[in-house]
């Protein structure tokens, strides 16, 4: 996912490509004389190991058909082409059709049947979601095996499948997978069992793929621009993926005969339609599954893993089998298949919800939907000692106003009348399903603090024979996990009901903004966008009032009162002491003032068309907006459209302090810190007024996002950044973001308090908000995309019986100006066995927490320290598991808990992210931007942010054919899932942008030193072993 990030300038095509060929060749077991061995050695990291294999006589997958050699020979000379074979394998993580298209025609000879293409094309697109399947199951690496000792019985190694049968079936299955559907059918039958077993599939698959991707005429086929961007770099990086893809045909069995390998489970389904496959997957790591027979050798891999991209290392003797390492794609796919169809019913305590990547329906039966609260673990250690031992952070990612899919009902609104919501006398917790009514219903005992409180007379109700209130099902607050209370005036600022909020659009009209076409575009868009302001429920008209300000180094306010014949502009030059020059007519109802507003929006671009003012102010603009809201006595949101570093003489003036020399020094952290404390105090004032700031940046150069972002960040706002904004190329993205941002429902002037039952306590908070004490999270604004991550610590012993309860109460003002309390309740299990903890973890949430923790860390510690701490913590988590939960096994074995088997790969992605390990092309602003962005991301977003999706697209020369349309539909559907519009970049092979693309291939070794997945896993393993020994 590319979150509005600018494309880093392309870097010349990298070297590492050839290395993979080596792999291939060795793999193929054909040390053909034609192929100079050296190129293969180039693969950095452990891969080279493969090279050695053949010589040692441990034959890995025998070359399937005769084809591979041919391909090798053909391609070897040109590094890229070598992929031909593996390219197919690439599919797993979304190799694009482009890749194939670009292959030199040479590869065509392999195509068994030119027929394929037409048939295949449709099929090719199906797999997007599930593509990457191949690698997941196979944890084994050459040198080691990852075993998931937990439950699932089915043995893992699809690929390894010692029993030839399995392989056969694997191949047999292939046809079934829609991904490659067509071709396997063609090919599979002919394949001999042996071939299949020996990994012949790879070539097979590859061949058809190529065939399919290429129009018959093949090579020179024009690439339709509509084909989605990501493809090309695959080639250069393809290596590891290749290995993964091969899982089906994985050579491992040969390489490691001892592998007891589960009896050949059905071959890895490439497609979700194969349920059996997932089972296997699970099995391979399933907790129940016995330790995998050692795959042997001590692993000596992980050379170089964290370091800079070094020269190719000598191949370690034994390595992890890339085929056998856990694949996120597979895990995601499995979860989808397993849990996507049934609704998730929240009645039971401590249920682990489906993954965020799975579409599922939630039925609230007493616990908050995971859309609202998602925990790192749903089973909490009873004691802090246990928790310390496990090192698994206990955190909840809370999205109080999360948007729900249409099929789920929004929280019910409960009105407890003039006396307000019923609450515990002592801890002030709100009435919820966990409260225990006693004494015939006259009192209730608080589930959080055990205090007994009288039931107010008007709330009294009899209990039935089970001790439940008779009205249990009539009252959302007794039967549901999430609901809302109408707040009374006591819950309002100054004991006055709030007025409906206001939106103020504050537009930079300096030279840069006008020249780039932004001002004109924006004004044009606002004319129609104002009809879509958020409205509550079925309201016919939005209650939100709007105001307009333009500015450069002075501010222009506009009076757009409906009674005026034309708008009035009021210039305030006194930026040192900002004030709002008008009261009446600044904030107006859109429908009443439509003509005046339209006239204004028509005139703004004209008025400033000839501006020569290049300097801008920033803080006074926010002050002005805040003052306007203060004067109008309402909360609201400022939409700031800003272009440049505010250097004009005014409060909050900034200087350019971008200094790349600070990278990797102790002072690097200053780049993330605001330049001046001024904005922090401004943010505080904004929060007090309920003034949320959304910042749209259009910088042409350094604007100091770290400082400009302070106010948006602390007020619960968002930052959007469009570097070098050009109307032609960025219009769609910006407008889409703007529309979404303006239209989305948002709560104002919010305070969030998280209450917990005795034994744990919320200790730390991450997100975009402001805190003036240690318990209340204050948010000037809060929308459905923003999350607050809360960390819990033990302060007492928990009991398995009563579990642990969390109640998150959010007091906010709705977009219609209604004061409400939204309550989310969640009950968790408690455990005395560490295994229970590890069995109920949620890795995505864990990563969300770890990323936020680390990203906050860079404010105060050197980046390297932060990285090391992350690695060390994860190593401890996994080591603890190994030590306490896994069955004894050889030290050389990497054993991961089923629920955390993706922890290493995801963690590696976090470590390689721009903030923690920036590449040369990543600007200081980008890092600050991403850092702030991640801080309020929810789990689904961090998941895809750190582990971007790769989707294969076949070549599509024609634009207006159904396929092309489907590609676009696909892109649209992805965009629809994101809170920000994704930039579409089409990358061609050998294009400069390939570097950008590579950047997202997070399982590969990255240019700026991030380890490849395999390397990292090795490293992790080493760390764990050190901890264990």
């Amino acid at each position: 996912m590319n979150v509005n990030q600018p494309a880093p300038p392309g870097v010349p095509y990298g070297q590492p490509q050839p290395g993979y060929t080596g792999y291939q060749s060795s793999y193929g077991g054909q040390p053909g004389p034609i192929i100079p061995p050296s190129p293969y050695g180039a693969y950095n990291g452990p891969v080279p190991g493969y090279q050695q294999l053949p010589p040692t006589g441990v034959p890995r997958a025998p070359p399937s058909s005769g084809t591979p050699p041919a391909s090798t020979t053909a391609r070897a000379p040109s590094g890229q082409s070598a992929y031909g074979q593996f390219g197919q394998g690439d599919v797993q993580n979304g190799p694009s059709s482009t890749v194939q298209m670009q292959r030199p025609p040479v590869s065509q000879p392999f195509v068994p049947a030119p027929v394929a293409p037409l048939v295949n094309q449709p099929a090719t697109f199906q797999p997007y979601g599930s593509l990457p399947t191949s690698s997941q199951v196979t944890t084994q690496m050459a040198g080691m095996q990852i075993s998931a000792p937990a439950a699932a019985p089915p043995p893992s190694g699809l690929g390894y499948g010692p029993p030839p049968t399995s392989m056969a079936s694997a191949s047999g299955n292939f046809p079934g997978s829609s991904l490659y559907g067509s071709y396997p059918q063609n090919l599979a039958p002919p394949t001999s069992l042996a071939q299949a077993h020996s990994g012949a599939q790879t070539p097979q698959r590859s061949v058809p793929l190529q065939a399919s991707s290429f129009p018959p005429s093949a090579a020179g086929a024009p690439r339709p621009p509509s084909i989605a961007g990501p493809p090309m770099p695959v080639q250069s990086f393809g290596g590891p993926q290749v290995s993964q893809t091969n899982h089906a045909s994985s050579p491992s069995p040969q390489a490691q005969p001892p592998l007891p390998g589960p009896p050949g489970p059905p071959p890895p389904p490439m497609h979700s339609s194969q349920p059996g496959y997932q089972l296997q997957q699970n099995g391979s790591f399933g907790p129940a599954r016995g330790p995998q027979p050692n795959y042997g050798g001590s692993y000596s891999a992980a050379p170089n893993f964290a370091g800079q991209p070094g020269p190719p290392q000598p191949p370690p003797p034994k390595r992890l089998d890339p085929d056998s390492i856990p694949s996120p794609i597979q895990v995601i796919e499995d979860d989808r298949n397993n849990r996507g169809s049934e609704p998730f019913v929240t009645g039971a305590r401590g249920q682990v919800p489906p993954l965020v990547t799975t579409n599922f329906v939630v039925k609230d039966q007493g616990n908050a939907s995971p859309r609202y609260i998602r925990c790192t673990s749903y089973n909490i250690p009873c004691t802090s000692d246990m928790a310390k031992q496990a090192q698994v952070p206990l955190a909840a990612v809370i999205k109080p106003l999360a948007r729900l899919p249409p099929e789920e009902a929004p929280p019910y609104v409960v009105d407890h009348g003039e006396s307000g919501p019923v609450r515990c006398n002592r801890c002030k917790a709100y009435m919820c399903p966990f409260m225990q009514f006693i004494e015939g219903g006259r009192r209730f005992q608080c589930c959080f603090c055990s205090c007994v409180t009288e039931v107010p007379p008007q709330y009294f109700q009899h209990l039935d024979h089970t001790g439940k209130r008779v009205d249990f099902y009539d009252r959302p607050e007794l039967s549901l996990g999430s609901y809302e209370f109408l707040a009374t005036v006591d819950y309002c600022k100054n004991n006055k009901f709030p007025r409906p909020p206001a939106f103020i659009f504050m537009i930079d009209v300096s030279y840069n903004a006008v020249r780039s076409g932004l001002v004109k575009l924006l004004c044009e868009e606002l004319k129609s966008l104002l009809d879509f302001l958020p409205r509550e429920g079925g309201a016919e008209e939005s209650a939100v009032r709007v105001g307009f300000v333009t500015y450069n180094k002075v501010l222009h306010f506009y009076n757009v009162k409906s009674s005026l014949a034309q708008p009035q502009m009021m210039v305030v030059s006194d930026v040192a002491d900002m004030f709002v020059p008008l009261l009446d007519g600044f904030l107006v109802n859109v429908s009443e003032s439509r003509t005046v507003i339209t006239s204004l929006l028509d005139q703004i671009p004209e008025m400033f068309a000839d501006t020569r003012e290049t300097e801008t102010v920033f803080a006074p603009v926010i002050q002005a907006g805040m003052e306007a809201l203060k004067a109008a006595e309402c909360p609201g949101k400022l939409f700031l459209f800003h272009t440049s570093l505010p250097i004009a003489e005014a409060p909050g003036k900034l200087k350019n302090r971008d200094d790349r020399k600070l990278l990797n020094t102790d002072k690097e952290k200053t780049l993330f810190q605001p330049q001046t404390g001024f904005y922090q105090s401004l943010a505080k004032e904004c929060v007090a007024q309920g003034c949320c700031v959304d910042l749209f940046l259009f910088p042409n150069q350094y604007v100091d996002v770290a400082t400009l972002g302070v106010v948006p960040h602390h007020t619960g706002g968002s930052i959007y950044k469009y570097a070098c904004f050009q109307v032609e190329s960025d219009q769609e993205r910006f407008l889409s973001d703007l529309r979404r941002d303006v239209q989305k429902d948002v709560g104002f002037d919010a305070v969030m308090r998280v209450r917990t039952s005795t034994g744990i306590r919320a200790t730390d908070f991450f997100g975009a908000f402001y805190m003036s004490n240690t318990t209340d999270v204050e948010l000037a604004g809060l929308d459905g995309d923003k999350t607050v991550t809360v960390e819990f610590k033990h302060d007492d012993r928990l009991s398995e019986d009563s579990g642990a309860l969390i109640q998150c109460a959010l007091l906010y003002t709705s977009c219609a100006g209604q004061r409400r309390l939204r309550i989310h309740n969640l009950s968790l299990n408690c455990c005395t066995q560490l295994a229970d903890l590890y069995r109920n973890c949620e890795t995505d949430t864990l990563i969300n927490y770890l990323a936020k923790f680390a990203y906050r860390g860079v404010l105060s510690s050197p980046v390297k320290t932060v990285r090391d701490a992350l690695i060390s913590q994860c190593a401890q988590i996994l080591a603890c598991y190994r030590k306490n939960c896994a069955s004894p096994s050889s030290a050389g074995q990497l054993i991961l808990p089923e629920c955390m088997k993706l922890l290493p790969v995801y963690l590696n992605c976090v470590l390689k992210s721009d903030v923690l390990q920036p590449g040369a092309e990543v600007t200081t602003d980008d890092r600050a931007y991403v850092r702030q962005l991640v801080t309020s991301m929810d789990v689904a977003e961090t998941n895809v942010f750190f582990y971007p999706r790769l989707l294969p697209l076949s070549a599509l020369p024609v634009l207006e054919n159904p396929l092309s349309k489907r590609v676009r539909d696909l892109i649209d559907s992805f965009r629809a899932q994101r809170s920000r519009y994704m930039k579409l970049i089409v990358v061609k092979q050998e294009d400069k942008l390939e570097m950008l693309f590579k950047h997202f291939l997070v399982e590969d070794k990255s240019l700026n030193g991030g380890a490849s997945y395999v390397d990292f896993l090795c490293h992790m393993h080493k760390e764990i072993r050190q901890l264990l020994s």
Partner: protein
Amino acid sequence: MATYLEFIQQNEERDGIRFSWNVWPSSRLEATRMVVPLACLFTPLKERPDLPPVQYEPVLCSRPTCKAVLNPLCQVDYRAKLWACNFCFQRNQFPPAYAGISEVNQPAELMPQFSTIEYIVQRGPQTPLIFLYVVDTCLEEEDLQALKESLQMSLSLLPPDALVGLITFGRMVQVHELSCEGISKSYVFRGTKDLTAKQIQDMLGLTKPAMSTQQARPVQPQGQPFISSRFLQPVHKIDMNLTDLLGELQRDPWPVTQGKRPLRSTGVALSIAVGLLEGTFPNTGARIMLFTGGPPTQGPGMVVGDELKVPIRSWHDIEKDNARFMKKAIKHYEMLANRTATNGHCIDIYACALDQTGLQEMKCCANLTGGHMVMGDSFNTSLFKQTFQRVFSKDFNGDFRMAFGATLDVKTSRELKISGAIGPCISLNVKGPCVSENEYGISGTSQWKICSLDPTTTLGIYFEVVNQHNAPIPQGGRGAIQFVTQYQHSSTQRRIRVTTVARSWADAQNQFQHIEAAFDQEAAAVLMARLGVFRAESEEGPDVLRWLDRQLIRLCQKFGQYNKEDPSSFRLSDSFSLYPQFMFHLRRSPFLQVFNNSPDESSYYRHHFARQDLTQSLIMIQPILYSYSFHGPPEPVLLDSSSILADRILLMDTFFQIVIYLGETIAQWRKAGYQDMPEYENFKHLLQAPLDDAQDIMQTRFPMPRYINTEHGGSQARFLLSKVNPSQTHNNLYPWGQESGAPILTDDVSLQARP
């Protein structure tokens, strides 16, 4: 003494000047013994329909310290084409243009009837007049509406090429940009912040961007102000625009809660107006016209807080030093006034409200710049509407009765020195040989700047005779004074008016009668009153009264004839006979008595007293009372309670008020409706006569007087009762109901000394 009266009148008509003494005591010692100083009331631009201006430059004495203008008193050697300066005796060559002069071919300035002459000179570019409206929006709707109409109306009265600007203020100050189409723009300033001139100009974008200076482009010719400013535009161009803008003007929208005054940023508004003109049109005739409906309540120059429960300062507070904001506010406005005066602009204040508006603090703005000060109850009164209209009245030539940026340069012959001036002017601090150390009024200079003046603007100028007693002046010697007034005429021409006057010297010992007979008691009374009022601004009221009393006693001692211990023997000559009466009424006048007047009212009265000509000033000191009856034509009667009779109608003119008072019987008749009966038509005429006369007076007066029509027993009768001499009071035992005038409820002493 008819001759002297005629002489005085002639001189006044020709030169606009009235001296306290028309024959001057020839020695310093004698002059001081005369009690009333040698001084004059001078009306620089006295309307002279008979005086066509000449279209050339005046000829100046070549002595750099003198530079007197050639005048009829100079000795001219026609043959040598030389003239001798009558002030410094420098001999000067005539300029070449005068080559043709001879006894029979004299230039106008040498003819005796042109002792006052006006030159039109070509100096610099002519910039149109500038009118900058500074409008308070914290008004009642009705008031604002009336004001808007007046302002819109005024646009039609302005010369078409005049530049106009608009600043509105309330809680904020808005400077309106007048040139924009489609959208009305204004620059807004916080009303609480004191800004420097530079800040204001920066914020209004009046300062050129630094770039242009760096580029060293040819600078615009010096003194060529850039005519187009976004904020000041020619009336004819933006007439419609501005009319609309004024029409859309709303009351200050900021809420005013119960018990509060609206927040009114008069101080900042004025400051911005001054800064705007300063930055755009320095030294060009411009009027800042402030329309305000209440006291400044915030920011620099605030006069009172916004809490209604704290009343605006009274004289009592001021005496008790209990006026919290006054000194600071005065300082603010004085600073502004001085800057305005330096720039040659003027500030008018039109204050209409029932309560005080802070004139006490703001008075200097008008006083130092020659601006108008108008005080009324509401903008929706004819008093304001007509007064405002009259600002734009025109003279016989169709020119506006306003002139700008005048400097008055006074030159004296060497027996005299200049002690100072009192009037709507500031000192230019030109110290010359003829500047006295004996100081009266605005002193220490021989030149003053009068930023705005009209044909009636009158200054009191005080002199000192410096001739020593032992250096007698030869018989028939005359002292001379020359007034050179350079100004911008309303037609934007630069003009110079030169008035040269001379009076005879007389030895006070030998020619005492001459001096005594040449005493102008009216001028003397006004001049002394100006001194007194000037002192009252800075001294305690009783001290000023004591000083006035002492002066009067000394004068009577000097010029009265009496036998010791015999009051009834006291006599004054005719030329002095009215003087004590003037002084009596002066003592009771609002100029010196603050009792019953608010500080604003005092400031207002004093403002006008310091600039009106002699006639008007005398009316102010001693109101005129006319009596109308069936017994004959209207006659002036004594300003005395004895004049208030039941069968009379009285018309009193105090300058500020016109009071028509119906005696008890008349009032009853009117009530009975006799005036409507044909057989009593004469009664109807009697009722109408004073009304017509009042109209006549009001037609010509600026500002419009308050018009009061009352009757015996009416509450407004107090305006009359407070002015008349209380010859009958409740104290002096006259039985009630006697036909002898009305008793006045006062403890004041009566003018008539009663043994």
